[in-house]
């Protein structure tokens, strides 16, 4: 009985000693932070894959989100120029060699105060649906883009 207890106390003491050692602390913290970084990087990386269009100007969306696998879509549709969508204008003229990557459509298309939401919805629909209509492929009905899952 006493001998067992003695062993137990020894073990506890051993662990206390180890965990109070500087090297162990450093080791513990570095393992922890590497794990943390990995998880963070993974989350950030998977966020990079755009799967829906989600313009922040639509605060409370009334329709299901629009399915849009950014890279896959553009590969399948064989769109080479990024500025086919992310276009840039100067003095009312479209610039062939410039783009607006990194900007949301609403940053330019929501500025007019008069019923700006209708204008913003309109340009999305004209750009996405307009190309599908012209090329006679790709979705054109509400429910084909705004898919309920």
């Amino acid at each position: 009985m006493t001998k067992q207890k003695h062993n137990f106390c020894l073990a506890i003491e051993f662990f206390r000693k180890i965990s109070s050692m500087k090297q162990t602390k450093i080791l513990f913290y570095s393992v922890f932070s590497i794990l943390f970084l990995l998880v963070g990087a993974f989350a950030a990386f998977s966020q990079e894959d755009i799967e829906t269009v989600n313009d922040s100007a639509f605060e409370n969306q009334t329709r299901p989100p629009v399915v849009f696998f950014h890279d896959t879509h553009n590969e399948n549709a064989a769109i080479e120029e990024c500025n086919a969508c992310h276009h840039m204008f100067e003095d009312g003229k479209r610039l062939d060699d410039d783009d607006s990557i990194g900007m949301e459509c609403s940053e330019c298309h929501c500025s007019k105060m008069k019923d700006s939401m209708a204008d913003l919805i309109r340009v999305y629909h004209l750009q996405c649906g307009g190309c599908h209509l012209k090329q006679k492929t790709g979705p054109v009905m509400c429910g084909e883009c705004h898919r309920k899952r």
Partner: protein
Amino acid sequence: MVGVAFTVFLAGSFFRLISMWRLAKKKDGLIFSYISIFFALRSIVHWILPFAGVSMRKHPAMTIVAFLFHVCLFAVPIFLSAHVILFKESWDISWWRLPDMAAEIMSWSVIGSCLFFLGRRIFLPEVRYLTSLSDYLILAAVAVPFISGLWSYHQWAAFQVVMIVHIISGEIMLMIIPFTRLSHMLFFPFTRGYMGSEFGAVRHAKDW
């Protein structure tokens, strides 16, 4: 296609009003001298307000359903957000939009009202006596756009096909307005106005 539907509706309505005008002039030109704007409007107002007339007070259920039906029938297609968005896309014009939830409830009301009218035609002997096949067809023509519209909104099975049914049935309904019993939408002010004038100015009586 939508353009064709609107053109047929507008041109057809215009044509029907003109030809009815000319027919009235030829058959009984005197009626124009009876028309009194005051009595015409008096009658129209009494028939356009719920429960303003005796007949409406006698049939409260029919009155409530009929008013609900007509309000929803007009408001939903005109103010439905999806329709406004499509007008905005095509012609860059827009107006107030109904919340989708309200539009949904109102569409169900229209379908429910159609069922009520159908039941009335089947089960009330005095109504059945006056009913012909075309009355059922017109009820269907009104109900189908609403059923198919709700169907595609909810993306139920095969909604792509139902969406096309929705578009075509809606256009058909618009186009048949001038040429079927739905033309009461066009003629209502004139028939009512005439009755009001005759009862008010000639017989010195109410017609509601």
